[in-house]
């Protein structure tokens, strides 16, 4: 007897046809599927935390002088751009820490050590300021966000997480 298990990835709903399978293989498949679903749920929770941090940052930083030192307010356009870029980057990289920049932008920051950090700043226009430190080396510049995550940013993050 074989187990019949269906999972519709596209619609995102989990549906199992009743199975009366009792073989060891069927049990293994059943357990693996449950492990995978649990892992997927945990992954979604991690994403939810990042979006929640982004939302909180926007709410905290949308007034003039939100830091007490004269910061510019984060505009709604910056929030949506940051959300879109973060969504694209979360497919490939760990969740960033989200913050507000006194320039009126949203910042995303990743770090693997005190002197291994990447920070990007997303404002209302399509240009993204970025900076990184890798030990004594410093990298900085401006990239364009047209549709996909800019190559300069993904290259820096790949270096941070996957290269020495």
């Amino acid at each position, binding site marked *: 007897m074989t187990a019949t298990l269906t999972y519709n990835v596209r619609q995102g709903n989990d549906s199992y046809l009743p199975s009366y399978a009792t073989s060891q293989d069927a049990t293994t498949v059943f357990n693996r599927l449950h492990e995978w679903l649990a892992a997927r749920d945990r992954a979604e929770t991690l994403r939810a935390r990042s979006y929640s941090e982004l939302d909180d940052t926007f709410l905290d930083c949308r007034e003039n*002088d939100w830091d007490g030192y004269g910061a510019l307010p984060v505009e709604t356009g910056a929030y949506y751009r940051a959300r879109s870029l973060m969504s694209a980057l979360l497919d490939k990289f760990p969740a960033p820490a989200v913050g507000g920049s006194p320039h009126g*932008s949203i910042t995303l920051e990743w770090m693997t050590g005190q*002197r291994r950090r990447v*920070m990007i*700043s997303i404002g209302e226009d399509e240009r993204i300021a970025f900076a990184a*430190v890798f030990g004594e080396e*410093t990298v900085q510049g401006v990239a364009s966000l047209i549709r996909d995550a800019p190559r300069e940013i993904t290259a820096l993050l790949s270096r941070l997480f996957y290269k020495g």
Partner: protein
Amino acid sequence: MSSARPVSDQEMLARYVLSGSWLYKDGRERPLKPNAWLPHPRIELSVFRTDGWHESNVVEQGERVASEREDKHRRKMLHEGREYPEEKTTFRYLGRGEILAREVRSCGLDVLPKEPPPCHADIVQWPPLTGNRKHDESAQMAYALKLAACCSFIPALP
């Protein structure tokens, strides 16, 4: 030009934290974000020279800074005709980033006295503004990342 004595390498400098947005929320050991070290709208960064101060004086100064900002903010909100309940507080002293003047200088910046108020100083020599806002911001972020790497954070007592 301030007449205060020059800032020596061994001096401790405090950057007062008034907004929770400057702190990581994931419980990490060093919770101060590099955002705390970004200068704007001036291209100097405001710090206090706390060497030789008793801890209670450092905290008092932080609370004074927060209180001044809060009063200014409250007046502004009320002036704009917006509601600002008596019990509401936007700025409070949450702690401070601490960094040695030597570390600031090793990052390529400098510290100069800037009084009043007493014992106030500015972190200076940030890259000159080019008129290109994003380029300026990326250059400042590079320095902020370096400062964040060598600072510590002293939280306010609950």
